[in-house]
């Protein structure tokens, strides 16, 4: 049954890729199509309000500048709201202003689509903050990521000097993708008993006569964009493990699909832009291959339970249920874990800290790679970066200057890619080392030994990959953690985005080389293999030593 559940969800996802991908392609291809009649009017209003009458294409520099400025403005507004939420309306539970390092961390966390939460939603945020900061940024950060990915795709697949207009992409991402889908998913979730209300928390008296404060609020709407935008920041502290966020297995599947379907359809969108759908499917297959390996690993590891407990005579037939919700069981928890870290959403329906060592390795590894579908847009960009790397290394072996989609990969592209591939391990490993070198960092670690390494590594990996899931167990709301993870999230998001936009800007100018029988083909099974190999050898081996000291050592000593 377990396996069947997994297969059905994966099957539905695969079926969604083509229709959703085609839709997304038409949104950004900027050619007139049927959806214009539905959404065109609202966009025209927005364009005229913001003074965007002519939407000329931008060079990569202008595009990058536009998205950065937009994000900076959003950050400033959000920071102020959080700091002064106590005096602002929409605060029936009378929550005070947020502390400054935590505000910094929270704002960065949401603008970077990370949603690492060092606060607990029910006690730290007013309803107004939940909606004006958290939900607003959940839309804008997803739309930013999506826009940049599309711009990158245009750079790889078109010829000229421009890669699209950021503001147009940004507006369309909202009007045609995230808003309509969010409304749809919200309604479905409400129908499945997820609360959506502005009423204050309910105070109930339990059977024993104690008073219980039951937190509610506009949960369903946040829940939908939380997943659609691969954000992951929950309304409640325990995120999608909370029965109001994720009441039953059906909502669980809906949440899985909402965070997974858009990232999974992006490779198809890429194929459409490249006028070679096979090319898109090759990227998809590489992602899916890695995903299946990870899913199988976490599922098997959790199914076999904790050897230390099993040795004590605990019934192992249920697997390791510690930290998991009984209503989901091993399969739905394992799938959720694999998807949330693959799509770098960061929402959780079980506590990753209590996964078995190898089970816990899976989310960690997926975030370290950040290409297994990956976050909104970023995953595809990263995978294409590995594709360019794979082409560069293996492509030389056919005796030509390596070219991807007919564009030659030359020193400029390699320099920019070098920046991106360097940044990722740097912002994970260096802060991890600093955390272990300083008392400020060490003080927050709740587990000694190998598990402590996993906790710290997980926190920074989650930040760097803009995933945001917490391993939990780390006392992370301290200035040290707020500031370091804040910086890591910032660099993790923007360094690679800007570098990759620059790559797009460089490739878009190149005259494509005609394809001949001497061309290194990137749209076949062999290339899927090369891509997976490149990701594993360059992306994964980097983290092997650290991982060996964390989860692997824990696993080996636990056996």
């Amino acid at each position: 049954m377990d396996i069947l559940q997994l297969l059905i969800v994966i099957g539905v996802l695969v079926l969604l890729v083509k229709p959703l991908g085609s839709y997304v392609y038409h949104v950004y291809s900027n050619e007139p199509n049927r959806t214009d009649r539905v959404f065109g009017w609202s966009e025209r209003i927005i364009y005229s309000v913001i003074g965007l009458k002519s939407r000329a294409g931008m060079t990569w520099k202008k595009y990058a500048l536009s998205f950065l400025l937009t994000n900076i403005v959003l950050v400033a507004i959000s920071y102020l709201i959080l700091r002064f939420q106590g005096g602002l309306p929409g605060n029936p539970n009378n929550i005070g202003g947020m502390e400054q390092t935590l505000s910094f961390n929270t704002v960065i966390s949401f603008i970077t689509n990370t949603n690492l939460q060092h606060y607990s939603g029910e006690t730290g945020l007013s309803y107004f903050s939940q909606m004006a900061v958290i939900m607003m940024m959940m839309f804008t950060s997803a739309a930013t990521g999506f826009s940049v990915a599309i711009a990158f795709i245009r750079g790889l697949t078109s010829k000229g000097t421009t890669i699209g207009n950021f503001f147009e992409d940004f507006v369309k991402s909202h009007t045609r993708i995230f808003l309509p889908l969010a409304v749809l998913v919200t309604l479905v979730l409400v129908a499945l008993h997820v609360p959506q209300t502005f009423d204050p928390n309910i105070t109930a008296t339990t059977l024993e006569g104690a008073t219980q404060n039951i937190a509610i609020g506009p949960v369903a709407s946040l829940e939908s964009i939380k997943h659609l935008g691969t954000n992951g920041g929950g309304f409640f502290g325990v995120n999608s493990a909370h029965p109001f966020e994720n009441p039953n297995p059906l909502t669980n599947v809906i949440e899985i699909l909402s965070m997974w379907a858009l990232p999974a359809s992006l490779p198809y969108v890429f194929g459409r832009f490249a006028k070679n759908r096979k090319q898109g499917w090759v990227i998809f297959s590489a992602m899916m291959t890695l995903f299946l390996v990870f899913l199988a690993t976490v599922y098997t590891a959790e199914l076999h339970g904790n050897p230390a407990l099993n040795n004590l005579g605990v019934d192992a037939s249920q697997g390791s249920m510690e930290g998991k919700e009984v209503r989901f069981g091993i399969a739905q928890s394992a799938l959720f874990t694999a998807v949330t870290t693959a799509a770098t959403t960061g929402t959780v329906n079980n506590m990753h800290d209590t996964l078995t060592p190898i089970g816990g390795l899976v989310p960690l590894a997926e975030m370290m790679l950040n290409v297994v579908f990956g976050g909104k847009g970023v995953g595809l960009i990263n995978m294409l970066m590995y594709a360019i790397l794979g082409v560069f290394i293996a492509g030389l072996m056919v005796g030509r200057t390596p070219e991807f989609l007919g564009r030659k990969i030359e020193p400029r592209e390699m320099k920019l890619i070098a920046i991106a591939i360097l940044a990722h391990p740097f912002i994970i490993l260096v802060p991890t080392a600093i955390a272990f070198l300083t008392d400020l960092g060490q003080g927050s670690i709740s587990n000694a030994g190998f598990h402590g390494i996993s906790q710290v590594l997980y926190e920074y990996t989650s930040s760097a990959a803009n995933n945001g899931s917490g391993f939990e167990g780390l006392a992370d709301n301290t200035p040290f953690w707020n500031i370091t993870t804040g910086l890591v999230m910032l660099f993790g998001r923007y360094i690679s985005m800007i570098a990759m936009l620059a790559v797009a800007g460089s490739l878009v100018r190149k005259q494509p080389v005609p394809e001949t029988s001497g061309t290194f083909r990137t749209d076949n099974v062999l290339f899927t293999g090369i891509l997976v190999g490149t990701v594993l050898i360059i992306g994964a081996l980097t983290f092997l030593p650290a991982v060996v000291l964390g989860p692997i050592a824990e696993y080996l000593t636990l056996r």
Partner: protein
Amino acid sequence: MTTKRKSMLDSAILSRAVRDSFIKLNPLTMMKNPVMFVVEVGTLVVLLMTLLPGYFGTEDRVGFNLTVFLILLFTVLFANFAEALAEGRGKAQADSLKKSKQDITANKMVGNSVKQVVSTELRKGDMVIVSQGEMIPGDGEVIEGLASVDESAITGESAPVIKEAGGDFSSVTGGTRVVSDQIKVRIMSDPGESFIDRMISLVEGAKRQKTPNELALNTLLTSLTLIFLIVVVTLAPIAKYVGVELDVPVLIALLVCLIPTTIGGLLSAIGIAGMDRVTQFNVLAMSGKAVEAAGDINTMILDKTGTITFGNRMASDFLPVKGSTIQELGEWAALSSAKDETPEGRSVLELMKTKQLSYGAEQIEQASFIPFTAETRMSGTDLPDGRKVRKGAVDAVKKWVLSQGGTIPTDLDSTGESVAVLGGTPLAVSVDNRILGIIYLKDTVKPGMQERFAELRRMGIKTIMCTGDNPLTAATIAREAGVDDFVAESRPEDKIALIKREQAAGSLVAMTGDGTNDAPALAQADVGLAMNSGTIAAKEAANMIDLDSDPSKIIEVVAIGKQLLMTRGALTTFSIANDIAKYFAIIPAMFMIAIPQMDVLNIMKLGSPSSAILSALIFNAVIIPLLIPLAMRGVAYKPMNASKLLSKNLLIYGLGGVIAPFIGIKLLDLIVHIWI
């Protein structure tokens, strides 16, 4: 091909390479190669720890540290040796070229008299006289006279070539020797800029610049090195948290094993050796970039004459018209050609022999030969008995016959056309006012060209033939040779338009040429191969010069370019794939003492932590010299399509790169473990 190839294991080259590998240890030189520079710094750190164990508190590990130091030192030396060896052959060749550059005494024209000066005093525009037995003092152009010149100093070809004023064979190179006659030469280059100077600096690799592809690869290797530097540096504090103390030499060993030393050490050797292979092939490439561009070529533009065909149109059949016989036609054709020294003329006599026909050769003695002129478009013989024999273009002969009151046989035109359709050239033969028939002149495709064009097609290269012939003839030759496309009745400016058109579509274009009117096209092409026999303008416009003046060599140059890129890719893949095994050797070894359960990861079952680390390091070092022959020779290349090529190379260098170190490290461990 010439006999200039030298054995790679020439002892002089070897000993010089050994010496150079130590000289290259200079950190300032090493810094240009970031991967090996990191190894060198690591080597120094371990050396200090070995020499000053008291200071570092490493008294108990002096033996181990000393061993690590020695292995690291040899890793650097091996890499230096590879580069020095690759440079060695070029340097040796440069030395022999320099010998031919000694000061030459030149006979400089001053007014009407001749003054003896040293060649280095000659400047552009000076005139010199060079007589039999003298060296030509500088690059120049023959402006008077004709001489045979021995160019073996440059080309290695001992047969002298004819140089004459005017036309496409007027350029002479300094340092070559006039074997007969005397010529007046206008010097075209200032001292230090001559062809031989350029050639010396090219083969010596003195001004070798990294090609774009090399730069890109270097960037990748540098960033991988930095990544592993981060990995190793951060590992120590992380490990310390769980109580694992890591020694600096062990961390350095891990770093050196992980960074791509194999390709980092061989990268420049591959580039130099690739250039050298081109030089050994008697083609002078002006830059490494040109050689790599050759590997990228999509379109090759080839002249028909001289490249695809022999160019000499050979008589291949006699086609008599109504009223004459093949014997009669042959006889008159032979008489018209007996004194004709052109290849066409001689081929008529050859054809007589193969067809076993005879003619009255005795009449020729007192006959006078009428040479071909552009005006008459005929040549022939006036026999002593007054009869005039002519052969030439069909319409010219027709006019000539009509002017003497003759009649035109009704089947002449159709016979002529049938020849043209087959790609041949019809020559009409007449005596006085009678036309006897047609000589079928055929342009013969060089043997083996068809197979080579098929190869090129498999490599994904389109071939376009350019010819001044009419479309019909061009089509026939194109079909016979198997080129993909052709341009008939082409003028020099058509070629440049064709190149521009192909380039606009994204193709890289290669072409060959020798005449002055080829120069713009040679400059426009991505790879322009000029013939050494060609004009100075052509040679200056091109980025490669074939010293043997064989235009079809461009095909091999493409193969060398591809081989160069493939070698680089293969060794990079191999180097990176090696990391998997090295991880499995070193990681468990590092942690095994503190965490005994790590032994599970020791899948090679290496004897002890120390021997595992040393074995991985030794493997990492010795793989460099083991791969030097491959780097120098280039990986085997047979033309085939990219997918097949990729699968094959991935299997050998990708999968091989994963497996080989597992075996190598295990074997080394078996030996190393005996001592530790």
